[in-house]
């Protein structure tokens, strides 16, 4: 599998290939900003299949992903004497899972940030993800997947997921990329970036992550934003090399004032390890 805009590690490739071969969901965990969501997008693009993204919030119920029955619209239509009211199918609104099941060529379904939802949420989806089918009570019909979609599930570890759910998934933990991998990641996003600038930016970035007592360590996505700013502002590598705690555009990396104060106090270090 070729992912054009995504740098993978061999263990991640194995995990994705296993999920594709055995048609089981792949649960991806990792620090925020390590590219869990982007992975699903890139895999979908490389397989040439449509991506259905279901973003989970604290109020999301499993049912929302399957379908919803719009009773209020039906009530209103019945008051207005709309002929559509006689068929309940007109008021069944399909969710992301249903849409993914219907895709004729198969699809990639991303259940993003599953840990944000209620603790029972994953359990409510066991059958649907295992058998790839569910029952619509209003119309008394079964919905079955035409082709089993490839399911990606991401989690930020805010809640523990139930064992029964975990048993049905493959699991991969994305570690924070080491320097070499990170250089490749930046290169994928900014081809033709000056090597000196990249080197300085990375040594500042990893030095910053090493500052003890940071409340929020900058992550990959923040590094990419920062490099984008550096390129946009045309900051030369020499300026970065000489920069102190007031380094240009550090605001893209540090997201609260305590951290800014901590860094100012500790001084900006550079991590020169290769």
């Amino acid at each position, binding site marked *: 599998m070729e992912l054009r805009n995504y740098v993978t590690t*061999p*263990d991640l490739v194995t995990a994705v290939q296993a999920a594709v071969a055995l048609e089981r969901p792949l649960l991806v965990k990792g620090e925020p900003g390590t590219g869990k969501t982007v992975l699903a997008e890139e895999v979908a693009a490389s397989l040439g299949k449509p991506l259905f993204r279901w973003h989970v919030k604290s109020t999301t119920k499993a049912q929302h992903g399957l379908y919803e029955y719009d009773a209020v619209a039906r009530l209103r239509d019945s008051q207005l004497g709309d002929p559509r009211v006689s068929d309940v199918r007109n008021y069944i609104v399909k969710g992301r899972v249903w849409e993914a099941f219907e895709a004729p060529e198969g699809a990639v379904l991303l259940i993003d940030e599953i840990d944000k939802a209620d603790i029972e949420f994953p359990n409510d989806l066991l059958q649907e993800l295992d058998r790839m089918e569910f029952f619509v009570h209003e119309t008394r019909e079964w919905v079955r997947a035409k082709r089993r979609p490839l399911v990606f599930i991401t989690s930020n570890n*805010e809640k523990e997921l139930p064992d029964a759910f975990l048993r049905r998934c493959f699991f991969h933990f994305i570690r924070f990329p080491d320097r070499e991998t990170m250089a490749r990641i930046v290169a994928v996003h900014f081809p033709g970036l000056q090597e000196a600038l990249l080197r300085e930016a990375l040594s500042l970035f990893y030095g910053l992550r090493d500052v003890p007592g940071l409340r929020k360590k900058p992550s990959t996505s923040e590094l990419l934003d920062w490099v984008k700013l550096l390129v946009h502002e045309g900051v030369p590598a020499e300026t970065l090399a000489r920069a102190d705690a007031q380094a240009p555009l550090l605001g893209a990396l540090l997201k609260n004032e305590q951290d800014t104060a901590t860094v100012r106090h500790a001084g900006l270090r550079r991590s020169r390890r290769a």
Partner: protein
Amino acid sequence: MFDRFFLSLRDAKVPVSLREYLTLLEAVERGCADFDVERFYELARTTLVKDERHYDRFDRVFAAHFGNLGEGAGLDPSGVPAGWLEALARRVLSEEEKALVKSLGGFEKLMEELRKRLLEQKDVHRGGSKWIGTGGTSPFGAMGYHPEGVRIGPVSAGNRTAVKVWDRREFRDYDDDAEVGVRTFQMALRRLRRFTREGRPDVFDVDGTIDATARNAGLLDAQFVPERRNRPKVLLLLDVGGSMDDHVETVTQLFSAARAEFTRLVPFQFHNCVYETLWRTSGPRESRTAATAEVLRTYGKDHGLVVVGDAAMSPYELDAPGGAIHHWNDETGAAWLERLVAHYPRAAWINPMPEARWRAFETVGRVKGIFGNRMFPLTVGGIEQAMRRLARATPAPPPRAA
């Protein structure tokens, strides 16, 4: 095919089930492992392990079972910097063990000996009294190479290729028992979620409205309730006594995680043991002290009590009036601790000292007893247990006969 491996994983407390094992066999059958040991390692990990906290245990079991596959893996013993081990040992060792090290000729001699043995040793070793490995009684065991701590990879003299991926133990930091940063603590503290309705009633109450309307003979009587919010109340007592210096960093991390997680956190400080006076953590210097009795009156039973301290002190500080190091106390420390436990049905003591060393101090056991065994190590797993115990009230243990 890999039954023994599967069983060892279960023995090592990696929660794997038969279903996952069958999935692995299926995947191998379909050629996902590519007849390559590294691919097999990755495949087995993605199939069998569902939590990064168990990656490290998995790595160790994998190394024990399949470590000899492929060419010999090695770790250059001369690459172990002496200062690095020394700093580690200083943190891990108790006084007795330090004395033992001294009797063996000090660190430098030991390091030299270690290098010598590493060069002699050709294969993985467990148990025994000379070789370096796991669970042995060689002097290096005393230096703190406990099975979960620093392990020295298998050595293959003359053929030092790169260390195999499972021998790198990159996931050690993710293990349950590891002490980790603010965010991980915050996750553990979340166990203490306590939803209460307080403040402005602005959420429509369906049940209440139906009830009130029925009582009102069918005339609509809309009812509102305040929104449910996560509001656990916590009284936090922090030991800032001298012996706590070693633990400043983890305690600070715990404190900042707790401050972010609990909107109603009341912190106080004490020295070694709680007596009649507590100290506020902020505010003008002259008004920093607070009478403990006053604190107990102000923050009632609805608060959970969390004490963070190593409980390592002289027995006099616990037992004798006047035993405190800084001032004269009329009542014993034990009496004050019992009063605290009696006042707060939900209480826990969190000890930053590694659990293995608790037995070395008599007072740790005593304090643990006073707290009805609710003493937990300052690790992510420990905090989780503590929060679980805090979530339910436990009646105070009966006061012991003095």
